[in-house]
């Protein structure tokens, strides 16, 4: 039974709804600054090559061209984590790797100038497979990265950053097992999160050390810290625009930010760098590739006694943030699997394809999609129902885990078995489950199968947020928080929280634009942390300012602050509601009141998402249809049911569930070219192919903040791919240990090639 709130838990119009549905919302390409130039990038046609010579004189001679940058005259900034990729280099490492940058009066002129840059390449041997790349005689991408291995590191995570899972004694664990299975599974189809709006930024310098950046990002703050990591402690102001989808990928916008900033510095003019969709495919970042080879020790009752193996991570030509993805993934493995003995060794490897960046699921989706299929082999051997296995093995009250920072955390959340059970019931799991490798139904050439996957993330409480709430005497409140809007409605959600605390009409609560000059510190919208950490900061600020309001009102109403309440911008005595003063009278018409809030990280309340999937495979054609999805979670308290519904249904797209069936970036492994880098050949689900989609959302109050809520949006897709892989196995009785399950792969498994 949840508390009845004025706004929390109810569907309310998004604050930016009117702007979006009238076309007034300002996305990055809708902006023009006076004197603004347009930047364009020249991509390499080779996956690995040395630039023998590069001549920009013909391009520079074009009227309207203001700057051409190459490795010869570009700033010496390095991108990636640890910093390893020069912003422009004399070596190119993937097809599309940026060779030169042009700024010109118009985008057309800039594009034309690219064709006038004369480059002579010396092609080098390339490597596209991570396991090949670590062999001694493989081509080397960076002189500083022997064996193409990115070093494990701490990079802001703390000295004990979780860079492997080593817990207990795996030898002892395997001895205790009734059964040991070995397996290998690859989730290395490097799907593209593919936001509809291509990446874009505008950079403008005011003097040598003062930069303003407009960015289409989910986290304006992350852009700022990222720039300062790359360029040193310059004075940088970051302003977020309405963002046309990110799903992680535009969190820091490392490459486009560096390119636009370099061009703006070279020209001393504002420069907009806005990718075309082709450039988005060719030069931007993709998901990590993941391959796990592991042994599992299991008892007949489903207790896992040991997990040991290696996790090969393909980062592509560079990695924006792989140590963090490894750290989070290693933590998330423990949330899914209560096992006392682990030895998982991650290896992050560079290859000659697009760089990898942040994508929703953040290491965990990659790890889960590779590990759960191996666990499934063990589950089948002891003949345990996977729903029972997940219920038994997902983290429970009293358990703990090493989280991202390498620190042991005791779990304070609920027993998620209840939610998993409820989801199974709505899905009709018990009626449909026929055992491992057995179809739920067969009719002609069609075979139906069901599968389930699970994921959890303690980053719902990651890092820090600050917020202020200002009360104005005219009865309005303004939330100061550095929140970008890329879809999850976080700006509106915190307004609802403030309106609820202040008992104010929602229309009377506004929020500042995302702008680092105006707002207090905000880590950014990642890891589903908005609802809890950011929400708690806004709630604390609203409660703080309410306390100030009551202290001001108490003497005026002849009462103690504790006797007072507020409603629709007036303060009243709880025992004598007729004793009432407007905020204007309380605050004074020439004053404002400001409350402050700050939340520290708390990794003890991980979220959980279980996805149940039903598929139908045609064993003659190999085509698989996703028929039905049930997404199940417990979020403590729904903030907005329609927003949450959208976030959970979002599990299908943005390199989520459909990475199991259709989504992949196909490389020509002879030359590293992407073969499907456009919106037709890259497969995405259309309106006519929608599966039936149900959500099951429990609301067990969490000890998080006033509204007992945690976020779940970021993890929604993560359990999906392995659920679909399991469903297809059960439909056809043949195990496929890689993604996506395209018809040719299914026919091959069925020996019908």
């Amino acid at each position, binding site marked *: 039974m949840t508390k009845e709130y004025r706004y929390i838990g109810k*569907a309310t*119009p*998004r604050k*930016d*709804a*009117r702007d*979006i*549905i*009238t*076309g*007034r*919302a*300002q*996305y990055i*390409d*809708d902006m023009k600054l006076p004197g603004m130039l347009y930047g364009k990038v020249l991509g390499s046609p080779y996956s690995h090559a040395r630039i023998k010579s590069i001549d920009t004189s013909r391009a520079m001679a074009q009227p309207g061209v203001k700057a051409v940058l190459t490795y010869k005259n570009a700033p010496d900034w390095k991108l990636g984590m640890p910093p390893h990729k020069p912003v422009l280099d004399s070596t190119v490492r993937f097809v599309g790797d940026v060779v030169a940058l042009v700024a010109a*009066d*118009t985008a057309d002129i800039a594009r034309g100038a690219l064709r006038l840059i004369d480059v002579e390449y010396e092609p080098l041997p390339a490597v596209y497979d991570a396991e090949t790349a670590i062999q001694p005689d493989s081509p080397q991408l960076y002189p500083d990265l022997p064996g193409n291995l990115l070093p494990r590191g701490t990079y802001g995570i703390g000295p004990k950053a979780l860079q492997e899972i080593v817990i207990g004694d795996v030898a002892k664990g395997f001895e205790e097992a009734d059964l040991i299975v070995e397996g290998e599974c690859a989730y290395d189809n490097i799907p593209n*999160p*593919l*936001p*509809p*709006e*291509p990446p874009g930024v505008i950079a403008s310098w005011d003097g040598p050390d003062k930069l303003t950046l407009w960015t289409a990002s989910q986290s304006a703050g992350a852009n700022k810290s990222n720039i300062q990591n790359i360029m040193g402690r310059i004075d940088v102001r970051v302003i977020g625009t*309405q*963002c*046309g*989808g*990110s*799903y992680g990928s535009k969190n820091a916008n490392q490459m486009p930010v560096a390119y636009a900033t370099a061009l703006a510095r070279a020209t001393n003019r504002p420069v907009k760098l806005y990718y*075309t*969709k082709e450039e988005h495919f060719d030069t931007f970042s993709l998901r990590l590739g993941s391959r796990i080879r592991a042994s599992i020790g299991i008892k007949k009752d489903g207790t896992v006694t040991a997990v040991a193996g290696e996790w090969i991570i393909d980062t592509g030509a560079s990695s924006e943030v792989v140590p963090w993805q490894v750290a989070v993934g290693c933590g998330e493995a423990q949330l899914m699997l209560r096992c006392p003995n682990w030895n998982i060794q991650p290896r992050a490897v560079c290859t000659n394809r697009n760089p990898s960046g942040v994508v929703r699921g953040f290491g965990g989706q990659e790890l889960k999609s590779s590990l759960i299929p191996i666990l499934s082999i063990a589950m089948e051997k002891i003949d345990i129902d996977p729903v029972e296995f997940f219920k038994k093995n997902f983290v429970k009250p009293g358990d703990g885990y090493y989280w991202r920072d390498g620190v042991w955390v005791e779990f304070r959340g609920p027993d998620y078995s209840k939610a998993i059970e409820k989801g199974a019931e709505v899905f009709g799991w018990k009626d449909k489950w026929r055992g491992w490798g057995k179809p739920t139904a067969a009719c002609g050439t069609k075979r139906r199968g069901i599968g389930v996957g699970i994921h959890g993330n303690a980053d719902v409480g990651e890092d820090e947020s600050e917020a202020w709430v200002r009360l104005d005497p005219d009865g309005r409140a303004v939330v100061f928080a550095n929140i970008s*809007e*890329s*879809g*999850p*409605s976080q700006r509106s959600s915190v307004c609802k929280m403030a309106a609820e605390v202040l008992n104010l009409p929602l229309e009377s609560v506004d929020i500042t634009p995302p702008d680092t000059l105006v707002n207090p510190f905000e880590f950014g919208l990642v890891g589903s942390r908005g609802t809890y950490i950011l929400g708690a900061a806004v709630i604390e600020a609203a409660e703080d300012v309410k306390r100030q309001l009551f202290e001001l009102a108490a003497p005026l109403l002849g009462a103690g602050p504790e006797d007072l309440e507020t409603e629709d911008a007036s303060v009243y005595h709880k025992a004598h509601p007729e004793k009432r003063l407007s905020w204007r009278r309380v605050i004074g018409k020439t004053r404002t009141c400001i409350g402050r809030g700050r939340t520290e990280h708390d990794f003890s309340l991980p979220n959980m998402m279980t996805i149940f999937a039903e598929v139908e495979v045609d064993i003659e054609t190999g085509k698989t249809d996703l028929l039905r999805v049930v997404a199940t979670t417990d979020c403590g308290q729904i903030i*907005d049911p*329609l*927003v949450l*519904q*959208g*976030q959970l*249904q*979002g*599990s*299908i*797209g*943005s390199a989520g569930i459909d990475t199991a069936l259709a989504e992949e970036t196909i490389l020509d492994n002879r030359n590293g070219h992407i073969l499907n880098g*456009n*919106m*037709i050949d890259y497969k*995405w*689900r*259309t*309106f*006519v192919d*929608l599966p039936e*989609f149900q959500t099951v959302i429990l609301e067990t109050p969490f000890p998080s903040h006033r509204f007992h809520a945690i976020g779940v949006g970021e993890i929604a897709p993560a359990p999906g791919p392995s659920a679909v892989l399991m469903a297809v196995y059960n439909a056809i009785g043949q195990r496929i240990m890689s993604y996506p399950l395209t018809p040719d792969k299914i026919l091959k498994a069925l020996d019908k090639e």
Partner: protein
Amino acid sequence: MPTDIDWNSSTREPIEKSYITLTVNGEPHRLGIGSQQDEIAPSHTLAYTLRESLGFTGTKIGCDHGACGACTVIMDGEAVQSCSILTIECDGKSILTIEGLEVNGQLHPLQQAFIDHTAFQCGFCTPGIIMSTKALLDANPSPTEDDIKQELAGHFCRCISHYLVIKAVMAAAGRER
């Protein structure tokens, strides 16, 4: 076709026009054709002209290749992808963009339904989706869910607001269950 040619002219000599007229959201615009920065070049798409020359930035460009639907506008009553039409082919045409749906501060029922159902997330594909469904409802005021899905089959919505969009359109058509 770089110019409009009047074949019926009495002189039988083609007459080349150096401008086109385009009505956008009820307002006529006379646009010069040429290669100067404020003129319409033969290579300019309708999407480009609407956004860059006329300032109707509510129309979004996603792929610029007719494969995502973001740039959909209504031309003489039909939903079209404005990235795949050259402006110089639009002489005399009447265009409705997302900015033209709101009349005197009054939202179109479709727009209101999208607000009421939170039928968007990032909102980038929303103007295109609304314009397609507007054209659908104009032609078929009582569509089935399947009609809506077929109409929107070419629209790329990566956040997956599809389910809420269908509900919103059904509601706008007065067919909410």
